[in-house]
Structures are given as C-alpha cells and as structure tokens.
C-alpha cells in the first residue's frame, strides 16, 4: 500500500518537528495508540489498537528513524505485528516552510507499507480509505495540539474528538476554493 499526502500545520517547522519527536504527545495524537515510548533517540516502540473492516486488533511495533535532519526531514522504518497480521514499511517525512508564512509548515509524507494476515486479507478492500481516515484524524489532532500550544492551553485529545475534527476538516474541504 502506498500512502502519500500533504498537510498544512499552523506552526513553525521547529514546533512541528518537536511535536513529531515527542512520544508522550504523539501518543495522544495517534488514533488508537495505547502506549509509545522512546527506546533510543532514533527509535520508538509502542502499541496501537485499530479496527479495519471486521479486523480489530492490537499491534505492537517499532519505529526507527534514519536520515534525521532537524527540523526538515526523516525517514522511518515501521515494523509491527499483532494476532490479526503485520505491517511493515518505510516512510519519508518532510517539513517545508509555507511560502510567505513562517508560522505555517507544509508536512509532506509518503510511505510504502506492506500488510499481511487477516488485516490484509479481509481489510484490503477498505484499507486505503481507512488509512486516509486515520491519517486525517492524526493531522486533525496535531493541528489542534499546535493551536492549543500557541494559545498556551492544552488541547483535548481522544478518539471521538479527533474523529469529529477530522470530519469537520473533510466537510470544510468540500467548500474550500481551489488555491
């Protein structure tokens, strides 16, 4: 499965970078994340619980970073497995300043993920849209987090509120004028 996308975050590159390297805060943003910890400066480990189609399950995995160039780029290797299957793959993350606005950051991501087991066999027909939805929820959460940080408050995070934020973003995108 190939994933590519682009999101605009309302913060400077450094603040987005800090957020994306902070396991405690990431754990609150990743949908279904049960725990996330740093094993080494370039290595995370954690557990997430996701349900795709009829395949619900918990997956334990590792995330290893490479080609780290703060605050603009890293490459990651993902390797996770649970009783409903496995996922492994690579991803690339680039943070670019948005033209004319240093307080906004363009997050570009691309990945190639291999799935296996029931997760793949039952879920594959909906996996693309499911992945899109999970990414959408993640970025909606990240956006709220960064806005709250700027305002000096703490954002509410959780599955339902982020799902709601994601839905609002989707609805807004229908009315957005093309740039």
């Amino acid at each position, binding site marked *: 499965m190939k994933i590519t996308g682009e999101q605009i975050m309302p913060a400077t590159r450094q603040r987005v970078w800090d957020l994306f390297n902070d396991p405690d805060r990431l754990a609150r943003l990743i949908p279904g994340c049960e725990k996330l910890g740093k094993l080494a400066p370039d290595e995370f480990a954690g557990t997430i619980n996701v349900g795709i189609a009829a395949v619900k399950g918990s997956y334990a995995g590792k995330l290893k970073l490479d080609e780290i160039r703060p605050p603009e780029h890293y490459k990651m290797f993902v390797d996770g497995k649970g*009783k409903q*299957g*496995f996922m*492994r793959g690579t991803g690339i993350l680039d943070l670019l300043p948005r033209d004319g606005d240093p307080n906004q950051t363009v997050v570009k991501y691309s990945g190639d993920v*291999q*799935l*296996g*087991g*029931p997760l*793949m*066999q*039952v879920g*594959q*027909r909906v996996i693309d849209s499911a992945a899109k939805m999970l990414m959408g929820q993640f970025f909606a959460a990240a956006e709220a987090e960064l806005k709250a940080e700027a305002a000096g408050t703490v954002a509410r995070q959780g599955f339902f509120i982020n799902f709601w934020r994601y839905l609002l973003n989707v609805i807004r995108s229908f009315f957005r004028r093309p740039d």
Partner: protein
Amino acid sequence: MAVVPKFVGERIKRREDPRLISGTATYVDDVRLPDTLAAVVLRSPYPHARINSIDVAAARSAPGVVAVLTGGDLKDKVGGIPCVAPAEHIPFHPLLAQGKVRFVGESVAIVVASDAYKAQDAADLIDVDYNPLDAVSDPEKALEDGAPVLHEEFGNNLVTRALVPNPAVDEAIAKADKVIKFRIVNQRLAPVPMEPRGVLANWHQASGHLTIWTSTQIPHLLRSGLAAVLGLPENRVRVIAPEVGGGFGAKLNFYREEALVAYLSRMLGRPVKWIERRRENLAATTHGRDQITYLEVPVKKDGTVLGIKAKFICDMGAYLQLLTPAIPGFSGLMMTGCYKIPAMSFEQVMVFTNKMATDAYRGAGRPEAAYIAERTMDMVAGELGLDPVEVRRRNFIPKEAFPYATCAGLVYDSGDYNAALNKALEIVDYPKMRAEQADALKHGRYVGIGIASYVEICGLGPSVMLPPKVPGWESATVRMEPDSRVTVLTGISPHGQGQETTFAQMAADAFGIDIDDVAVVHGDTAIVQYGVGTFGSRGLSVGGAALMMSVGKVQDKLKKIASTMMEAPPDQLTFANRTVALKSDAAKSIPLQAVVDAAYGWKMPIPGMEPGLDATSVFEPAGCTFPFGTHISVVEIDPDTGVVKFLRYIAVDDCGNIISPLLVAGQVHGGIAQGIAQALYEEVVYDENGQLVTATLMDYAAPRAQMLPRYELAHTVTPSPLNPMGVKGVGEAGTIGSTPCVVNAVMDALKPLGIRHIDMPLRPEKLWRAIKDAKKA
C-alpha cells in the same frame, strides 16, 4: 408383474439429490463422535520468512487446550506430503513449516482443544518470531538471477524443464507465409468447492486401527499415502469419503491437514476434527491453471496452420502437491486441439513462487490447451482476414482419419468435428447472426460471436499415461444379493457426478430389474475393493466399464444356472422384467428370484457350482477418450461500462453415447459456469510482495446465477471404441469449451476498435480501459 422400464438413455432424476436438497446428507462435519477434539491451524501471514522461534507456552496453558504442535515436534517423526509426478526438484513438503514459511497460509502450528473456539483463542496466543525475507510472486521474475530462492538446496526456483522438441516446427516457421506470435495467460484460479475441506480422524487404540473421514476424491490413494506418511500398515487404515460437496480436482490430493489430524488422533487417543474455513480454503487449498504461454504459429495465406511452437512458464507455487508438475503436460500435448497440425514443439519451465501450490482444477491442463488452440484459430482468422469458421474447417482432422495420431503422439479415438461445428452454427443461425452483428455496429453496439471447437482428453486412462502410484485402471464389484437386489461397489469416488444414478441405470437394465433395486456404494476403503478415484472425467468410461465387466460375470453365472433350469443354452437367455427369459420368446421365462435362490443354494443347488453371486473386475482402458464439441457465444459489450452481456450461449458437446441425459446437462451447465468465470470474472491475485489479495469471497469473484447466461444445449454422438458403453466423459467439457468461446466472442466484438487480445479475466474495468485507449488512438 409390472413391466420394468428401461433406464439407460432416459432422463432419470439424480437419486443423490433428495438427501442433498433436504439437508440430510452427511458431510465430514456432520459426522459426530463422542469426545471429539477440534483442531485449528495457525498459518503464516508472511509469504516468505524464516522462523526464528515459536513460543507456544501461553497457548498450551490456555483453557481447553489439549495439544499444540509445531514443525519441531514433528521433525523425523512423520514423512512429508508426496508428489508422485516426476520433476527435477521435489522439495520436502512438511506437515508444519520447518524453520521457514514459503507462502501466505502455510501451516505453522496446530492447536487441539475441546472446541474450535478455544483452539482458535489459543492459536492467537502463539507468538511466532518471523524474520521476513523477500518474496517472489511473478513466475517470470522468479526465474531471474537474484530472485529470492524458495528452496535453497536447489540454488534457484526451477522445478523442472520439460522439452518436446521438433525441428519440423522451425522448418515450418521458415517457409510459412506468415508467423503469428502472441503471449497468452491462463490466470490462476481457485476451485472453490461449496464444501471446503474437512478431516475427522479416530484412532482405535485397542485394535491399532485408524479411521479417517475426509472430503476427498481419492479415498484409496489417500489411504496408501497416509499409511506411508504415518508408518502404519495399510490394512489398519480406513479412509471414508462421506458426502463430498464438490472437488473439481482440488480434492484429488493429499493435504497436510489429513496427515496432521490423523497423527494427532493417534497421539491423543481421541477423535480429532478439523474443518477448513473459507479463508483457509482460498489460501491453502490447491489452485489451478497459472500458465503463461508464448506462441509462434506458422501459417499459409489460406489459413492452413503449419505448426505450433510454444514456451510455457508454469507457476507451481511454493511446494509440489500430489500431481502439481504433471498438469502442464496435458496443456502441451493437447494444444494442437482438433486440428491436423503437422508439427508442434514446446518447452515448459515450471517454477517455484511464494504462492499456494497449483494442481488439477476442472480440466487440468486441457482448458489451457483449448484456450491456446482456439485463440490461435481466431488469431489466424483475424490476421489473414478470414472467417473463424473457415479457418477451423480448413484445419480440422477429417472424420475419416480416426483413430488419428497427432503430432504430439496422442491417438484420438473417434471424432467428427465438422458435425458438432455445423450443428452449433445451425442453432445460432450463423449468417443471420453475422448480419445482425454488422447492423448493430452501425448503431454503435459492439456485438461479438465467439466460436470454440474443442477436443479434450478423458477417461484416464492407460496407466502409462499417469504418474507412478496413480494407476489408470478402475475396479467394480457387482453383487446380486439373496433377494435379487444388486449392490455395486465402485472404486471411483463420486462427489457430485451422480454415479449412484448412472451406475444404477446400467445395472438395472442389465439385470432387468428396477433402478431402486440397485444400491451403489463408494468412498469407504473398508467396504469397497481398492480403486483409484474420480477425476479427469473417468468415472463412467473407466469405472463404468469395470462395472459392466462385473455385471457380465454375474449375468453369465445367472444364465448358466437358468440354462439348467430352463433347459435352454445360456446364450439364448436374456434378462427382462425380473425374469430370465428366452431371447426368442419372452413368454418362456422363469423368475429371476428362482435363479438367485439356486445360486445361493437356498434350494436346488447346482452341482459343482460355487454358491454366491458376485464378481469383481478391473478395467484398464487401452487408450484415452477424446470428447469434443463446439461452443458458440454471442455477447454484447457496453462501451461505456465494459460490461459483457450474453445474448446467446450454445453448447454442442459430443461425449459419445449418453447414459443419463439429465446428468450430462448438469455437468455441462456447471462446467460452462466455471469456464465463463475464468473468461470473465475469476482470478487469484497475489500482490508483488506475495500477499494474497483475493482471500475472501468478497474479493474472489466466484460467479453467481445472474452472471451467467441461459444455455442452449445440443449433442452429436460419436461413440468411443475404447469401452463397451461407447462413452467418452463429460465432467470437464463445459469448462474446456466455454473459456475460449467467450474470450473469442469478446475479442470479436472489440475487433472494430483494433483490439487484438486482452488477457483474462475480462472484467468490465479492464475492457473499459481497453476501449477507452483504443478510441483515443
């Protein structure tokens, strides 16, 4: 006394059907033994990985769990799954993965618990530490240097290379007016029997007997295989194939689970049952087809085909099942079809890939051959601007030429290919249909007419044509019981073919008794003498011939006894209406029961005659039968959606003499459904990493009723000289004729757009893209 009607050739309803449609049939899962344990197999989610370790501690201590086995527990204790077909590289095929997995769905561990739910919960607790390896799912890539190697001991992924060279083909290519080259693919298919596999094993400790109920087409061959793998004497192993809900070749095999469950029952001293789930069926039951063929066809301007040169890449999957590398042979040998092509040569490269093994699937090698031959004929017609009917007629083997020795070395028993073609053309009204097609095109409608004149190879067969340990003969016992009812024990193992009906028709007529007075018994090695099984459309032509041999022996004994009672020579006697009567004067007769009483010595024993009325015979055919026919389909393609709609479907099949017309129609219907499904819908898809994409019936497009047309069936009758009934076999004909017929129709419809060939399955999305691209160009 009521007159007993004749049964052979009549439209007799299947005697199997009442129990099947009323839900009272007994499949493996319906067999209930006290204290039965349930087994669940843990399967690999990886197409290719090394197993670092397996932690089963949590599973072993889970509630209800009785045993957990992994590959390590079986090492050196049991044999591997046999492949009897010759090949250069035959890997060890373990019951549970030994250190490495090679396809998604490969068995890694088996859990036995008090019920299947507890077993599944425990299986979820098994922690397998895999080290994923690169996988290869494309057979052509698997042959390249640097491709991941499945079985390291061989150094590469070659299973075997089969060469049938013939320099005459290259001469033909050199002197031909034109050489037509193309590549076609017979995609991988899943047989999808309605009943998945299932096994129940019961080890009887006191007597050292193993009884195993399994959904199989070959109970006796399986008994031999199981005894060998488990190290048991064959007379202590009993295999029962109860009701079998479809096999299509997928159950012409010996599977890991059959040996595993038997092993576990012996180990635990309790019955153990494993029932396959649909996802397991799609991942770990044999697939069919999966051949890529590169063809070179030299032709003369008038459409005469001078030769065929082919290179096959055959995807065998990760391990070799019972007959895996034997299947492509039929594709090569039969690819000249019903044509007098003077020269052929082929090379077959069989390859290991990280996929489930392929093996026989309805047609087993011949659908691929018919697809090659019939696409070739249409390609020739298209390239030379000739009518496909004309090209076929020009190349047909004439009916005077039979028995005909083909350039591949086969001897076709009998045939009249023009007769079948003519009949089909007449039914469809070919000239009128072509005119309608041209008219439709003027209105922007894409209508196509597809023709396929197929010939296939059935009635396997002389044992020399089959691999060792799968002989070609078949057995039958006929016993007239003391009440003059007949029991037939047949060595074949019908699983939908309906021989409980056909064999009863034949035996009833032979003895002049009612069809209800005949019981046909099959599928139990403790009751039935050794037999071979049901596959390759051999049930009637080989098993039925054995039946008639035994019938003849019992008839002879009855006649001999009756002749002393009637004071008439035995050869003047016949059987009718439950009597033995004089041929010349049916009124002069004695009741059949009186003769049977004498035979059993109830009264009036015949001096010097051994009491009893039974005979066992084995029939080994002198050659194979070659059924043939012509299928014509008329389709219309919606250019906006790519959907194929059937306007007509005509099947003219020649299976020799017909014993049971309803059953023949049923076989043709089912066969066409599966053949159309290959043409339009079905494909087993593995992604480039070796993951199975079509892992559920949501994704694997087995056809439903509304996806199929109404069939117009007809027959020509050209008896086979090779068996006493003159029959040929019809179990696979529909599958073989229909696939090329439908693809030819679709390509005919798209010809005005300049489209030459599209590989199957011709899904709407694929056709829509091709139409869009063609219109753009």
